[in-house]
């Protein structure tokens, strides 16, 4: 005698309040329990990697704002680092420190968003998001001061940054540094000790270190599973080898730990920022670039386009979402021959099925929130 029950297929998305963009999760349910989960991506595919092959290296920088639009700085940074690696350019010291400051500010802002939205997914009706936005806005103010934009920043340049920070930046940043730890303590006490958040996230969506590594997840997701892996320490870039900070590691690999790790990382970001503000040297912010003097033939390209030597390069950084890598192949022309983004959101998402099968719908939403995807980066 067999028992029959009709599976119930629910499409979470592409239009759904909690898929953080146009991402579709096709759940097969038995009651409230998920027995199968399919991820359907591509609703936001803009063919960036192909488009980039038609544009010069400099023109590609704005694209990198628009993949992970919640962390444009780190997107910029990873791309220009790849180009610099390809061309063998060494940015000046001040540019490296500026990049560090901007990356950490961006990390803080992005984690604000991640945690706020995660709390929203848990059902806290907008309040944590709004509180987190308050602080994120202040960081965006700093960005506006530095480069005039708030979201799609286009700040990094190949060989440095687009412009130096104005004189009022450092005092404003220092003032913010004094404010933020108090706010952070507020969030920690508000959210970490919250019985309902603990009940909703403890022991949910567990990834063991083995599984996490097998799925190649990175960033807070990997660290929450107990693997102390942070590219800032493992493969230092910018000025991270000169500052002192710790890797925040969770021990249970569940949703709660991802959230804890992000909060701890925000504290570490503040630590890095304080050191960086103290240690920032003066000097040029841009390296001298080898200008393209001879244009081969009569190719219709922009004048002064950079022509990296033939070869390939992969540069990776620790973006707020994990290992963000840019792989570039140059055929010596003004545009990359191949442009590939190793986007952490996309790869972290691959573990979603593993985490969601067997839990309830409500858990799946929280797990998706804990992965912290940006669909612009998933679909590119």
């Amino acid at each position, binding site marked *: 005698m067999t028992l029959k029950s009709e599976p119930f297929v629910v499409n979470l998305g592409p239009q759904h309040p909690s898929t953080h963009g146009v991402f579709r999760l096709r759940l097969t349910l038995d009651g409230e329990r998920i027995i199968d989960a399919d991820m359907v991506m591509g609703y936001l595919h803009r063919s960036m990697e192909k488009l980039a092959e038609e544009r010069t290296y400099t023109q590609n920088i704005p694209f990198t704002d628009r993949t992970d639009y919640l962390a444009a700085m780190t997107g910029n940074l990873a791309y220009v680092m790849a180009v610099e690696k390809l061309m063998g350019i060494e940015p000046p010291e001040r540019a490296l420190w500026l990049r560090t400051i901007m990356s950490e500010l961006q990390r803080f802002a992005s984690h604000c968003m991640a945690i706020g939205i995660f709390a929203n997914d848990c059902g806290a009706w907008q309040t944590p998001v709004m509180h987190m936005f308050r602080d994120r806005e202040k960081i965006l103010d700093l960005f506006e001061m530095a480069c005039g934009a708030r979201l799609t920043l286009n700040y990094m340049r190949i060989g440095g940054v687009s412009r130096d920070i104005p004189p009022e930046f450092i005092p404003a940043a220092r003032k913010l540094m004094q404010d933020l730890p108090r706010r952070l303590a507020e969030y920690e006490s508000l959210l970490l000790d919250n019985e309902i958040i603990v009940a909703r996230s403890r022991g949910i969506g567990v990834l063991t270190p083995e599984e996490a590594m097998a799925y190649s997840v990175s960033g807070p997701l990997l660290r929450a599973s107990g693997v102390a892996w942070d590219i800032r320490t493992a493969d230092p870039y910018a000025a991270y080898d000169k500052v002192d900070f710790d890797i925040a590691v969770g021990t*249970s690999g569940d949703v709660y730990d991802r959230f804890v790790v992000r909060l701890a990382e925000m504290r570490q970001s503040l630590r890095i920022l304080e050191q960086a503000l103290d240690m920032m040297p003066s000097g040029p912010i841009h390296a001298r670039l080898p200008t393209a003097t001879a244009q081969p033939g009569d190719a219709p390209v922009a004048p002064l386009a950079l022509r990296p030597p033939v070869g390939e390069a992969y540069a990776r950084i620790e973006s707020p979402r994990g290992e963000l890598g840019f792989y570039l192949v140059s055929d010596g022309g003004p545009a990359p021959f191949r442009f590939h983004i190793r986007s952490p959101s996309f790869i972290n998402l691959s573990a979603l099925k593993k985490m969601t099968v067997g839990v309830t719908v409500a858990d799946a939403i929280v797990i998706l929130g804990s992965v912290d995807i940006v669909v612009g980066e998933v679909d590119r």
Partner: protein
Amino acid sequence: MTFLAPWYDLRDLGNAVQALLDRIRDWGAPDWVPYAVSSLIGAVGILLWVVLSVLAFIWIERRVVALMQNRIGPNRVGPAGLLQPVADALKLLLKEPITPRDADRILFWMAPIVIFIPTLVIFAVIPFGGRMVLADLNVGVLFLIAIATINTPAVFLAGWSSNNKYALLGAMRTIAMLISYEVVQVLALLAVVLFAGSMRLGDIVAWQQHYNVWIVFLQPLGILAYIISGAVEINRSPTDISEAESEIVAGYHTEYGGIKFGFFYQAEYMAGFAIAAIITTLYLGGYTAWGLEKWVPGWALFLGKLYAVFFIYIWSRGTLPRLRIDQLMSFAWKFLLPLSLVNVALVGAEVLVWDETGVSANVALPIIGAVNLVFCLVAVVAWARLLGHGAGRQRGRRALLTKEVGVIHFEPAEGASPGPAGIPAAQALRRRSGQA
């Protein structure tokens, strides 16, 4: 002047109505005329009050929650945004009434109306003042519960007839929750009835007035259980899982737009007021306040308390995340139900002892209040600990800080279950430590 006096006695609007009815009777109208007139006045009065309150509280809730969220809230339409609810209502009225193609058309249109009625009918038995009650039923408390249950099929019909999966999920969740929390609700109210010895709401208020004690002081656990189950009934966070926005979009009313959604919205607020009114009447002394009702209009006291209770729900909505359905169900069945049962038994014993010994109320009530308060605190804390909640090991865990790259620190949380295809966590840990 004998005729005018009661008209100006605003402490109880029932007097004014009575004066009017007496006039009508004096004119020699048949018996049913004053009866019909008083019903009409009551019904229209309640309807007006409810609609105005809902409009006001939509604005208040939005402003208060905005305050909690560092926002300003509606401030464009009218002075301080006061006309925003009116504008919203107009917008809903003018929207196109969309019916999904595969919906069950009749039920789809019927559900918003059906859900509207019981929430309105509840107010008929609520005493707003000494004589301001439309129908002081003999079985008032039972009536409240019975009418509230009509919501259940209405919600189900809304969810089912939409022919939408989110709506169906929401409807199923709502039914499961309402049925579970109804039991708790009944038990909480039963304890009140045991004290007052009557199911008539007017008698319960009179009892509280007579002994100068609000039942909340005798029934801390009861009001706790009732507030929580009330939150479940009106879908307010942390128990708003039946319309959990982040999970199932809007639950059973996902497919509803325009004025049909307006009905649901209004009904939800009205149900909130109904719960607040029940709490006020049964636990907070209704329209009385230790003799204050001699100077202040009773209905003003009542409304003040009602709005204060409703504010709790606004507050919780602005602050608390949502529980999962199984957590909420186990909260009802494992936590509230046993405690409510014990509570009822305790109250029964107390009332019995009080009756048998014949102690004066001045002695008995403080003792009962103290005993119940201690019982409430001890039982809640002890039972929560027993079920493994609120203990230190659960909460406030901070991340580990390390500088060593590539080292693995892993110990799975208690109760974490590996996924179906996963490596059991403990096994992985053993393997890991073996390697190290």
